[in-house]
């Protein structure tokens, strides 16, 4: 359960993890040791409460950072490039995607009207197609995340802060 707990902590923003992860894990271990002596029902209740608490807490922390209501934001790794969190171009891209979806829906209606019954067989294969697309999307997201994570580890993003004129003493 501690492994799952550690994994779920990755859902929190990095600033929160850096500040509280160690404490949270220690408190969780103590609480788990307590519950370990209790009944099966208590253990299930404890695990459910912890999992839901972490999920809700992670969402709240992200919302807090996104809404920018707290000075704690300055602890995040991407402060050097604040626009990285939510670039203005995202609004434009989202609008483009939305228009694309609307056009696709309109085209799909036209195709259905044109081919009628032939589209029935198409719908039979739709779940498989949707599953495949979803799997590809997951793999793509995992690859992008892994690249960003690896870059973050190497500290490449900090190179932008180097001032060439300064000499080290």
């Amino acid at each position: 359960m501690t492994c799952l707990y550690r994994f779920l902590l990755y859902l929190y923003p990095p600033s929160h993890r850096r500040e509280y992860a160690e404490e949270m894990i220690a408190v969780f271990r103590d609480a788990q040791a307590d519950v370990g002596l209790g009944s099966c029902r208590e253990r299930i209740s404890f695990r459910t409460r912890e999992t839901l608490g972490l999920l809700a807490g992670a969402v709240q922390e992200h919302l807090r950072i996104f809404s920018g209501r707290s000075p704690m934001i300055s602890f995040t790794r991407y402060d050097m490039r604040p626009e990285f969190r939510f670039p203005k171009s995202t609004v434009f891209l989202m609008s483009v995607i939305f228009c694309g979806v609307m056009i696709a829906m309109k085209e799909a209606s036209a195709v259905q009207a044109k081919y009628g019954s032939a589209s029935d067989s198409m719908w039979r294969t739709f779940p498989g197609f949707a599953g495949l697309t979803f799997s590809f999307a997951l793999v793509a997201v995992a690859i992008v995340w892994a690249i960003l994570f690896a870059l973050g580890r190497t500290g490449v993003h900090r190179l932008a802060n180097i001032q060439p004129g300064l000499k080290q003493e």
Partner: protein
Amino acid sequence: MNSLPLTEPVLLVLLSLAEQSRHGYSILKDVEQMSEGRVKLSTGTLYGALRRLLDEAWIERVEEDESPRDRRPYRLTSRGRRNLQLEVQRLKHLTKLAALRIARKEA
């Protein structure tokens, strides 16, 4: 966290720290004990509340050299104590009002 009333978990966390400084697990157990087992905080809820209270300077970390990093104690600040007193006064007023209304209805 700008205004009262407080949520029950936050109120209980503040009450837990009113008497003495405590670390996370001690707060968790004290809240459960105070509420007679009715309120069981998850670590996610507890540290969400602690983070907000720290942000608003209602509580602070007690810097002790000997305390390990995963067991850092927290204590109320004067601001936190003042706000807790205000909340308790509000609850007292509400309880008094409720008792009066109920007594009037029964009479």
